[in-house]
């Protein structure tokens, strides 16, 4: 992509330095802490799975039984139990679900435990490598049918089997990415439900079995359409690392994963979220899963003209936290959104400026562009026109992941035909202007250039302010999304534990080696 905005390279580099300065103290906090969710994710990656009769997942049972020892790392207990009982993970899981008390199992010596853990980690590694190899092979085989940007739709029926029908229909119509929206409130559950589910409100539970069912259905459509259909789910919430683990095991291709979303929009405690997001991103990176960050959400509470710079500032911060988790730029789906008030004169030019700016500042990143939502109304016909403008902006600025706008956005979760209309709209617009971006440049010193430069300047000023205050304090003061979150407020703080001297986590050790993360 040719640079069209005359953005100052020095300022961009300066913004990245500010972001590194912001992430530094947080990295220190992350290094010194674990959480109940990190431990549960670790257990899952070593083989813990299943649930007891009351639906309490085995990883939660283990953590509850050993609640006082979380700071030492719980993997050694699970591995010791495997060895002492002479059981496979599946057998041990069944016993745990029946009430077997892991707290009564004495720890074995560290040498034996480490050897067994190394074996389990090797199995994990080979499963993830096979997933990546399968995806890469499919992408290569079907590369001639790949679109740019990729068209992304959501399904949200609450019933995984119904979701499958709708996802299939959307893929046949031309969708490249299917996200299964989670049921309302799952982000605040401190466990991941087990098994296939058919009841949900405004979405479907993220469970490992649901992941598997949808993956299998999309694999089938991928073959018939000769187009690899990507599957998305959500890492956000109190179970970020666990859901990342399940997504890695079941070959999801993208996961929503924002470093601050849970804090700002779900009132999850910040000390909890920062530790969880880091571990979940390491898992995402190891499984070659593209993350989608949530900057678009800022513009649902703040004005897109006045607060455009907060989106850019957050993109820099999300980029930095992703780098700290060993993630390459090609997996960073930084988010932004087409959310300007449609009544603003030249609002479309401001949207173009923002989208082009994101593209130029983050050239290798698969940017995720979100459609109009805030100013969508029950007037579905105007909504369709707004979505066409959004489609145009996305293609004109070379975005990567294009979340299709639904004409019924303000009314209900999409009906079957809403996706069809959205896909037709995008295919028409994007085909008829396929090479527009190569043909058009922006006037030097014109409105679009000036706007992008202004947003970069404002973003730099905000990043400097956040660095000066420290990120924890900046969030407490409401510098992002105009939402104030006290440091010790929100959900999940009691699940954060300082790592004890003998903390041991073989999965974390492996992730750090594999992703070449120091410390």
């Amino acid at each position, binding site marked *: 992509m040719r640079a069209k905005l005359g953005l100052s390279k020095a300022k961009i580099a300066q913004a990245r330095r500010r972001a590194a300065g912001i992430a530094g103290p947080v990295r220190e906090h992350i290094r010194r802490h674990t959480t109940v969710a990190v431990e549960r994710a670790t257990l899952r990656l070593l083989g813990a799975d299943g649930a007891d009769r009351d639906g309490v997942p085995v990883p939660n049972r283990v953590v509850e039984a050993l609640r006082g020892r979380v700071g030492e790392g719980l993997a050694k207990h699970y591995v010791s139990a495997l060895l002492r009982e002479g059981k496979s993970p599946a057998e041990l899981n069944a016993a745990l679900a029946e009430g077997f008390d892991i707290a009564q199992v004495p720890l074995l010596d560290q040498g034996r435990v480490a050897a067994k853990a190394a074996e389990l980690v090797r199995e994990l590694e080979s499963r993830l490598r096979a997933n990546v190899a399968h995806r890469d092979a499919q992408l290569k085989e079907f590369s001639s049918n790949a679109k740019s940007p990729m068209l992304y739709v959501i399904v949200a029926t*609450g019933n995984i089997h119904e979701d499958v*029908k709708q996802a*299939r*229909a959307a893929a*046949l*119509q031309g969708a490249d990415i299917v996200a299964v929206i989670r049921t*309302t*409130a799952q*982000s*605040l559950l401190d466990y991941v439900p087990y098994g296939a589910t058919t009841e949900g*409100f*405004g979405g479907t539970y993220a469970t490992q079995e649901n992941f598997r069912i949808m993956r299998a259905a999309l694999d089938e459509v991928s073959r018939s359409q000769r187009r690899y259909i990507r599957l998305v789910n959500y890492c956000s919430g109190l179970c970020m690392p666990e859901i990342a683990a399940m997504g890695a095991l079941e070959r999801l291709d993208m996961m929503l994963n924002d470093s601050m979303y849970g804090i700002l*929009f*779900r*009132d999850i405690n910040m000390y909890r979220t920062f530790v969880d997001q880091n571990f979940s991103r390491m898992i995402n990176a190891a499984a070659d899963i593209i993350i989608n960050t949530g900057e678009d959400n800022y513009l*649902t*509470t*703040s004005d897109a003209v006045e607060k455009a710079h907060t989106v850019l500032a957050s993109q820099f911060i999300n980029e930095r936290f992703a780098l700290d988790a060993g993630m390459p730029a090609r997996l960073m789906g930084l988010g932004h959104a087409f959310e300007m*008030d449609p009544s603003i004169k030249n609002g479309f030019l401001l949207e173009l400026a923002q989208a082009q700016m994101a593209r130029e500042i983050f050239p290798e990143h698969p940017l995720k562009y979100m459609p109009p939502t*805030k100013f969508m*109304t*029950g007037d579905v016909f105007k909504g369709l026109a707004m979505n066409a403008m959004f489609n145009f902006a996305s293609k004109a600025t070379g975005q990567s992941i294009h979340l299709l706008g639904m004409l019924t956005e*303000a*009314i*209900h*979760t999409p*009906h*079957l*035909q809403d996706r*069809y209309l959205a896909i037709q709209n995008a295919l028409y617009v994007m085909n008829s202007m396929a090479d527009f971006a190569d043909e058009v440049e922006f006037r030097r010193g014109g409105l679009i250039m000036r706007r992008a430069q202004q947003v970069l300047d404002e973003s730099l000023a905000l990043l400097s302010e956040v660095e000066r205050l420290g990120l924890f304090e900046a969030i407490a003061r409401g510098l992002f999304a*105009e939402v104030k979150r006290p440091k010790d407020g929100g959900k999940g703080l009691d699940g954060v534990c300082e790592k004890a001297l003998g903390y041991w986590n073989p999965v974390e050790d492996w992730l750090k080696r594999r992703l070449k993360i120091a410390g």
Partner: protein
Amino acid sequence: MFIKPYGDTLNDGAVQLSFSLPVACGGKAREAARQLVLKMGFAHCEIVHAHPLSDEFTFFVAYAKTAAGVDFERVEYVEALEEKSLSMDEVNAFIKAEFKRKLVVVGACTGFDAHTVGIDAIMNMKGYNHHFGLERYPMIEAFNLGAQVPNEKLVERARELEADAVLISQVVTQKDTHVQNLTRLIELAEADGLRSHCLMIVGGPRIGNKLARELGFDAGFGSGTYAEDVATFIVKKLKERRTAGSRRKQ
């Protein structure tokens, strides 16, 4: 006055419809769609567009004519606000003059609902679309409890804070979860005694005044509502209640 939809002539009854059927696209599917529209009670039907959504679904656009109509004069409807809303400054002046104290308003998304966009638009300092939220009103003490507040908790907090009005936002309405949740809330508020002296108001994109009143709330506000609309309702209704109360005391 008897009215029917207007297409291009008075009372032609022209209606545009679109829907999907769970069958493969083809002549038979088109005919099925046409018959379906006639069964809905329409007089004429043209299927103007049919397109496969997959091998098991088809999308249709249809135009049809209805014989149905309504007598407009006999339609009964009461707006939550019958007159024009006061401005923020007028609301404050009204509270100073009439109540001589700050009014307490508590808001939340209750039950499972995690979508704070609506309650934030009404309550946050900044408001929405250049309409300041209740936190900005000098004569209103606004407490936004946020998302997924259990109904019990909301009632408890409203009692502690001696709320004059409680605002509930419900965005998720799939499978009528909001109806169950709102019914439960009213029951709790009544059992608690809160209901007798506190206004209960619900808002959300799919919420209307009619539904809200049926569920036992004082008012319901749909999309397009700003903080001043809600504030105007609160101050006028509280004044009306006080006047009615003092009359009873006499």
